[in-house]
């Protein structure tokens, strides 16, 4: 086995391309790996013509290969399609059907990228893996604990999706872009002469390139021979009065206003979805405000846990500005009560709740129903 071999997870995008180029320039011995996660020829009805953001599209693999050739590193595409469908796509679909709004990127990070992929990298002889994530990992000089911080470029910060990382995974992971601004990364890409230097950023969830999750779930059901009509139901207000009908609970997420097709004078939002009755409950904006919730399966990152209530800032979705809150432990070490100082809009079950102390990522868990 080659000593100090570094695996770079290459998506074909500019960020991971720069990681490969940068680490090579710093003298590291590198192997480039691209995960084949999803066959883009499946579910043609939800495909997009957009040039970027198509996970595992042949274009992206082509780009990653071009970058690897340009830098002059060995490069391989590895097949994770079965694992991705089991660990990410099926849970994604099931979460929607259970009335929650999942984050597949976090599932992928937890169960694929920083788990089986990291293991595969180790198997081929790479003790460490580098990715293009915008986040920073450092080791505490005294405790030896690995800590995570937001990226220098706060507009690109991806720590929200990384709250599941364990200490042993962080010990083997490098985020070389955490200290850069996106503009600097672009400049580096040009400086390194990378073929992907001007490639656009991907926006949507990789396997749903057109961003229409409900259409994806409908198409996936159709492919699996499952009747999508089974999730149809009524739209009711908070008093239980029927206001209309809907085509499936998976079309709705908390706080959503579009697509309700109700002829009512006041603006109505989705307050909750009830999978058991297949009802979608709507109400005014005030009905969306919530001060307290529980997070389950909490993973602590920069601290080992909380023995007593702790003040923190909590982010409840990727674009949410972390809000001041008190974290209170429960009898279950992996379950935490989050109480915001000010009620927050659309605390959505299934999303992550990530706890910060300033730039430091304390940990995070999943928002309960």
């Amino acid at each position: 086995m080659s000593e100090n071999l570094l695996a770079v997870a290459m998506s074909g995008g500019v960020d991971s391309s720069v990681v490969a180029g940068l680490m090579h320039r710093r003298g590291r011995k590198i192997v480039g790996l691209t995960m084949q996660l999803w066959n883009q020829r499946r579910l043609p009805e939800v495909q997009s013509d957009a040039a970027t953001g198509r996970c595992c599209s042949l274009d992206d693999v082509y780009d990653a290969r071009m970058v690897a050739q340009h830098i002059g590193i060995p490069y391989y595409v590895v097949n994770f399609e079965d694992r991705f469908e089991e660990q990410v796509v099926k849970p994604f679909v099931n979460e929607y059907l259970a009335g929650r709004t999942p984050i597949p990127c976090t599932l992928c990070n937890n169960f694929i990228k920083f788990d089986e992929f990291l293991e595969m990298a180790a198997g081929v002889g790479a003790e460490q893996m580098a990715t293009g994530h915008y986040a920073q990992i450092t080791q505490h000089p005294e405790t030896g604990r690995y800590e995570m911080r937001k990226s220098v470029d706060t507009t690109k910060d991806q720590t929200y999706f990384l709250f599941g990382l364990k200490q042993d995974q962080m010990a083997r992971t490098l985020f070389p872009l955490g200290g850069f601004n996106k503009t600097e990364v672009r400049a580096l890409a040009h400086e390194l002469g990378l073929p992907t230097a001007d490639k656009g950023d991907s926006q949507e969830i990789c396997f749903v390139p057109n961003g229409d999750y409900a259409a994806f779930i409908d198409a996936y059901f159709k492919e699996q021979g499952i009747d999508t009509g089974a999730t149809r139901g009524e739209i009711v207000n908070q008093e239980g009065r029927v206001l209309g009908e809907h085509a499936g609970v998976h079309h709705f997420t908390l706080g959503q206003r579009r697509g309700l097709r109700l002829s009512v004078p006041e603006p109505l939002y989705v307050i909750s979805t009830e999978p058991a009755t297949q009802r979608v409950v709507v109400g005014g904006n005030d009905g969306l405000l919530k001060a307290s919730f529980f997070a389950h399966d909490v993973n602590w990152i920069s601290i080992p846990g909380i023995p007593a209530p702790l003040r923190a800032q909590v982010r409840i979705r990727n674009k949410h500005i972390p809000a001041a809150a008190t974290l209170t432990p429960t009898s279950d070490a992996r379950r935490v009560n989050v109480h915001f100082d000010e009620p927050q809009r659309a605390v959505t079950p299934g999303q992550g709740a990530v706890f910060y102390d300033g730039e430091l990522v304390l940990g995070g868990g999943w928002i309960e129903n």
Partner: protein
Amino acid sequence: MDRFYFDHNATTAVSQEVLAVYLPVLLEVYGNASSIHHHGQIAKQKLETGRRQTAELLGCAAKELVILSGGTEANNLAIFGTRPRHVVTTRIEHPAVLNTCAQLEREGIEVTYVPVGPSGVVDPEEVRRALRPDTGLVSVMHVNNEIGTIQPVAEIAAIARAAGVLMHSDGVQAAGRIPVNMNELGVDLYSISAHKMYAPKGIGALYVRKGTALAPMLHGGRHEQQRRAGTENVPGAAALGAACTAVKFADGSLRDQLERGVLERIADVTVNGDLRFRAPNTTNLCFDGIEGESLVIALDLKGFAVSTGSACSSGAVEPSHVLTAIGLPAQKAKSSLRFSLGRSNTPEQVDRLIEAICSSVAHLRRLSPMCVSHV
């Protein structure tokens, strides 16, 4: 880093003796073989010399050979060109046959896929049972590309002949590896490819027994007895002929050395497919508890080229349809690797390969959650 090549079933390097024939033709013989003038005549001579040399290897008449672009085209021409109403083939064929048959199915023609047992050798009786009154073609490969098993083509051809059905065999992995003779095999159609026998890519031939009706797929000039339009690849044909002349059959000793070394030193390894009826250069080994994909990458990073499964369009590995067809569970199929040896390999290289496999398998098994018993 020294690099060693153990993937000769994928393709081979052009040999010196082939290059010595190929290059002068490529550089100097630029005439169109259909032209009347001097340049055309020289080209025609080179083309026909190549065809004659190829015919000698196959034990057939030169004019029974259609020179074309390679194995895939040969298989397509055999299957489409015979215009069968019903086809009998096997589940272990190369995609060049399987996907051609799948296209026939899309066009409304029925195809029966004969199952193959764990030996990886087709039972001729299964083929006989699959025959129907409307069967027009039987297509059974000669040597399997992934496990190297030799199919009883002569027996199957006799069954087809007795039933009045045309017999095709994909001989891409057989020609140059084991002796092949068209009359002894009794086939009507037989595909070969030059790049599996130390000649360049892009050239091959389809044997078409005299008197066999075959409709062309490519339409154009009156080349190749109107069976394959397109200006002939004269340097390619010359190289194919030179490769056929230079064939030397392996005795299997390197393959045996590799198998013995691996089986003696690593626990829980099995050889996939029949041990008796197989080409002397191929072994397909299952390493319990590891991902074949990881082992291929680990070996490549050490300089050893081997293969697993088949690459999909992105280059990722898909589980081998051959191993699945012969009844291997998906996990065993994913844990299997193909080693195909060739002229460039030496006993010393094989020893180094064994060493590399041992250390990589040990490393992977230490990490693998699939393989608790090896921790």
